[in-house]
């Protein structure tokens, strides 16, 4: 597993403990100048041997380069069969069997496997760690396609180890491998906790904003579909609105589009405090499978909407081309007409 962190003290311990108990052999971490205690957690895990940390000084946030570097190192230096490029707020949950067992079951000719990202909504901060209080998961019945929403439906992928793999922004695919994706099956879920406290939301916006402000346009920061949401968080943090935004987002009770999901809380509760035992992942029941399939159906519907948007963009481009062709034709006709007049005179 690879991981980029910057000041993630409220999740990094849980992140590492969970994945090491879920079947991850080694976590390669790039620490981008953390100073909130994250660096101490990393150092502790590094001493235990299951985490390798590369420290990057204050400066450009070269996400794609770092993920690529780590993913290649995982394959070349550590012989990883599979690589999961994760963020600190993501918990990769295997659907029956450990991560190792699930990935080990993928037929050899397929090199990419999809995971369905499950968004957990923020709840009011009450001093408890995020995983103990954030047990409500979004179960949208239709795709949220507002690019500024943190709740857009999306997939991430895990890939086989490959020495020339290239990271793609958002980790929905990889380049450089020729790997074929296995479709029609989501054997992994990503439990995603993007917004946890007002302070964290503010920090996230500020960090992202400063990275973009300094380096936007110089190709150092990839601006993908998630960027609009980050940009919004940045503006909120600049305008001192993070707390108000958080309070608006925080959910106090259940609701039609929210499902109680205590899996991460229970899993972390089962982990011994002094070391990562092994977690067991039971197979979902047929009913759970049906509910999961219904939730995941929004991904397919979101795909259709994305295709429609691409078609809209294509139509505009064709319009531009037609206009250019029209203008050229018009110039040609005028030229001919001038020539004809000259000859006539």
């Amino acid at each position, binding site marked *: 597993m690879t991981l980029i962190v910057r000041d993630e003290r409220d999740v990094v311990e849980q992140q590492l403990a969970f994945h090491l108990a879920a079947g991850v052999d080694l976590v390669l971490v790039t620490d981008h100048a953390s100073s909130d205690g994250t660096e101490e957690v990393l150092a502790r895990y590094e001493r235990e041997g299951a985490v390798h940390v590369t420290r990057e000084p204050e400066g450009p946030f070269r996400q794609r380069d770092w993920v690529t570097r780590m993913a290649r190192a995982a394959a070349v230096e550590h012989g990883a069969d599979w690589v999961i490029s994760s963020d600190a707020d993501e918990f990769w949950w295997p659907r*029956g*069997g450990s991560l190792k*067992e*699930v990935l080990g*079951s*993928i*037929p050899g000719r*397929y090199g990419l496997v999809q995971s369905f990202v499950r968004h957990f909504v923020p709840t009011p901060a009450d001093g408890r760690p995020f995983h103990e209080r954030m047990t409500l998961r979004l179960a949208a*019945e239709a795709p949220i396609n507002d690019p500024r929403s943190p709740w857009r439906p999306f997939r991430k992928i895990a890939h086989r180890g490959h020495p020339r793999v290239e990271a793609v922004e958002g980790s929905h695919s990889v380049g450089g491998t020729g790997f*074929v*994706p*296995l*479709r*029609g*099956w*989501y*054997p992994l879920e990503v439990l995603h906790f993007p917004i946890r406290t007002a302070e964290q939301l503010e920090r996230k916006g500020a960090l992202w904003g400063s990275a973009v402000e300094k380096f936007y346009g110089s190709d150092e920061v990839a601006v993908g579909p998630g960027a609009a949401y980050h940009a919004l968080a940045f503006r909120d943090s600049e305008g001192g609105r993070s707390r108000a935004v958080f309070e608006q987002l925080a959910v106090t009770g259940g609701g039609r589009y929210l499902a109680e999901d205590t899996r991460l809380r229970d899993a972390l509760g089962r982990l011994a405090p002094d070391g990562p035992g092994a977690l067991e992942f039971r*197979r979902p029941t*047929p*009913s759970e*499978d*049906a*509910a999961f*399939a*219904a939730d*995941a*159906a929004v*991904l*397919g519907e979101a*795909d*259709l909407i994305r*295709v429609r948007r*691409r*078609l809209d963009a*294509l139509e505009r*481009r*064709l319009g*531009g*081309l037609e206009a*250019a*062709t029209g203008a*050229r034709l018009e110039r040609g006709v005028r030229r001919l007409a001038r020539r004809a007049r000259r000859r006539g005179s």
Partner: protein
Amino acid sequence: MTLLVRDEADILEHWLRYHLARGIDVVIATDHRSADGTTDILRSYQRDGRVVLLREHGEVMQQAEWVTRMARLAATEHGADWVIASDADEFWWPRSASFAELLEDVPSRFGVVRGLMRQFVFCPGEGSVFERMTIRARPSADLTSPYHAQVKVVHRGVPDASVTVGNHDVEGLGLRLIRDWFPFEVLHFPIRNERQLVDKFRRRASSPDGQHIVKALDRLARGEQELLLAETAFNAAALEAGLRAGSLVRDVRLRNALRSIATTGSLRSPTPPNLLDDADLAEDATVALQFDGAAVLARRCAELEHRAAVLEHRGSVRGRLAGRLSRRLSRP
């Protein structure tokens, strides 16, 4: 469940026993000009009320129309909660639990779920089809192959359902599809003996809906029956090689189910699939989903984007050349 059938006496009895033992309430069957005893088998089940029999005598098979009629009948006359449109060579296998339990779990906002076709290959020989043919192929992405990748649909009973040719899609009020989930497998035995192979395709000459039918008819028209046979049949050596290479998979689930029905008269719930079963299904699903509307659209969109980019590039190159030329010409 609805069934469109013509001359399939070799498997029909098994088909009826299997699906009724699996918990199907009623089979509405349309018998199209059968002359091999199929009609008698259907009549014998009609007597105890499990089969409703419709008969069609016209020359041309009007599949979509007849299947749609049966689907609507199921909803309006028989109060069916769910309707499965099947052919006689398709054995529907619920992946876990029973038909009813699986379908009960589908959230009410969805009205269509899918079955993934599992293609059992033709192994020539004597004796029962299901004792002999226990090996399936990874579905082909080549639509002219009789073993090409396909999905089938199960839908809620609604009075305005319209089933498309081949039972791959259905439209109707509230029939929203769960696209990426295959709670059913459709164990498919399209080719079972040489005679049936030839008849099967000849009969479709007036309604050749499908590239595999067009190709087979073309072979037959050229007198290439041997070639058609060679392309679809697997002998012992081919089976062994395929099993080794992973392009063929041994699958005795239906054989065992039919044995159980024959000896005990009943059928146990299917064994819930494990991780490897899921991976095996996903491998076939990946091929089928290449032909899915959304995937086809995305691919065509990408092709058009590429062509637009080429045109834009040419346009800008031409523009630069023209600019350079006109500057040069305007020099004194």
